[in-house]
């Protein structure tokens, strides 16, 4: 029962965008791990450069992320009749 309520709450948060920043951070970390794994693989110099470039970018702050997320959300047709 408790677990079901927890899942429901998580879904409400997901649905409303309340956890969008957490999602983003998770995605960012995952991406970083993938990059770290790639580092050990055989790569061309250009690829390494790209990776280094991406790696040097820290994740967005909560404020900056929310700003970008909202602007993106309201570009295009998002509500109809």
């Amino acid at each position, binding site marked *: 029962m408790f677990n079901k309520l927890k899942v429901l709450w998580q*879904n*409400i*948060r*997901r*649905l*409303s*965008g*309340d956890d*969008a*920043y957490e*999602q*983003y951070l*998770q*995605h*960012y970390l995952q*991406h970083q791990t993938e990059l770290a794994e790639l580092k050990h693989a055989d790569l061309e110099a250009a690829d390494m450069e790209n990776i280094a470039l991406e790696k040097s970018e820290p994740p967005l702050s*909560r*404020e900056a*992320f*929310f*700003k*970008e*997320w*909202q*602007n*993106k*959300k*309201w*570009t*295009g*047709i*998002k*509500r*109809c*009749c």
Partner: protein
Amino acid sequence: MHKNIKTIIWLSVVILGVAAISAIALNRGESISALWFIAAAACVYAIAYRFYAAWIAATVLSIDETRATPAERLDNGRDFIPTNKWVVFGHHFAAIAGPGPLVGPTLAAQFGYLPGTLWILVGAVLGGAVQDMVTLFFSTRRNARSLGQMARDEIGPIGGAAALIGTFLIMIILIAVLGLVVVNAMKRSPWATSTIAATIPIAMIIGFYMRNFRPGRVLEASALGVILLLLAVVGGGWIDHNESLRTMFDHEGLTLAWMIIAYGFAAAVMPVWLLLAPRDYLSTFVKLGTVTLLAIAIIILQPHVHMPAFTQFTDGTGPIFGGKLFPFVFITIACGAISGFHALIASGTTPKLLSNERDIRLIGYGAMLLESFVAIMAMIAATVLEPGVFFAVNSPAGVVGKEAVDAIAKINSWGFAVTVEQMNQLAKDMGESSLFARTGGAPSLAVGMASIFGNAFGKSMLALWYHFAIMFEAIFILTTLDAGTRVGRFMLQDMLGNIWPKIGQTSWMPSVIFTSGLVVAGWGYFLYIGVIDPNGGVNILWPLFGIANQMLAAIALCVATGILVKSGKLKYAWITGLPLVWLVIITSTAAWQKIFSDDIRVGFLAAANDLATKLASGVLPPDKAAVAPHLIFNQQLDAYLTMFFVAVLWVVILDTSRVIVRYLAGKPLLPLTEVAHEPSRLVEDWVRD
């Protein structure tokens, strides 16, 4: 055994469904329980979803669970994100469900409850839900491309341009008619006006809260906002009882129209975080909450529908809008059965979240069924009113007369019982000064909802329920108005950017102000004319919107049919082809009648000529003569606009037919733009073996 039980259950659903539809179709008695409507809808949806939608998914579209969706392949943690299917369902439903399915059925109730109800059910399961589902599927297979892009890629440049122009014009007409609905709800009602006005600072407070105070905490901010909105409803009552404050909010329609126009411009120019985004959170929560509450109230209370199955107005003489049952019931119901606008959400937006193709049936087909159910509830809320009351609220003064006594006499002459005292008492109960000629559907829906809520949860608060219902309608009408103006602005910037690149920069302030001004002027014009029109304006604007919306649906169905044929599925192309043929018939017939009918309440040109003759012969009273030239011009403009819509529709149809004929003749065509199969990594069982 297990299979047998399933068969028995589905047989019971079929039997219950047939019984419920027969009950509502054959009833000619005094009244009928609304529960029959709910039962009929639930059974029709269940059968259609389980069998028809499942068949389309498996056989026609050949949905492939092992195939990676764009959300998975292009996952960037921002807009492309594989998401739980119920969360996507929620997003999709919140995006497609606007005020249309509430307003359309309320207006269409003038024909009686039956025609509208049947079309809401049949139109949704065979037309609207199919359109949404196949569009979602095709867009998912094409990296979440938009309807316009798919039209261009698969049919040709003409289809793409038609979809773009069609969308822009529908937006203009839609915003105008929705603005008119809000104006009519606020007219001479300090309570409604102050409550709706309060939603603006409330949205801004929430905007600041989410932006500066607690960034991104959407849920706590929304909870705060909903509490403030409820306080605004109560506070509106207090203002209404305060002699000095109430005059600040007591306005005529025209003043309110100017305020809405000014508000629309401000909302389009302001940053989204300040007004649009927070308002949308509030409207989504209020919308979901109210619709759920209404469903519960209808089930607990089982109100009786008093409207007859058919009224005499099927002959085209209806007071709310002119025109016969065929084709106008289809044009009027619009969004509750099939809405072209949904194709814009089902392509482009929703596919970016879809984690697996198997969810397409739930999200594309299922969400439309829920929207159709909202339309059924609106139909119930409109028809539980005594028909006399329904017509007194919804008939414009230009048809029944300005004075209460005249209006009542006219409505009584149609055979619907209602008295002046009854209407006065009702207005008093609802906390309004008058409920005569409150056209647009919102006030009558609010009266219906208030009486349902009042009976289910306590009658003492009728006025509160009424204004709660008005706030509920206004808040998401205003969201559509804000969002629509903004989208219109982007489209215009995009189009004009081809001529002068600088204007295409969406963040360049002079361009923002200029293009927002143009869009607001576009819908503001139709809103202004609607307000000064003694027949209420809704009678002109809603059919125009309906024609435009059904035209866009026909374009979406053309694209879908074209892709089905090109994919070698000619024998299944009827799933979109049949609704397409039907839409073309009703849209073309309605457009023909709106342009050329001799009946001045139907034909734009006939109405313009009639008014011009009256103006020339000097029979019009001075106040009507003053606005007559505007009305004449507007009727002519509407006639040309309708011609344009129907011409666009036929161009797309001919273009699609050309593609189909070339395919059948084995001639070269634009290639299918479906993205190649890539196995999904999210479906563990399939991929790892």
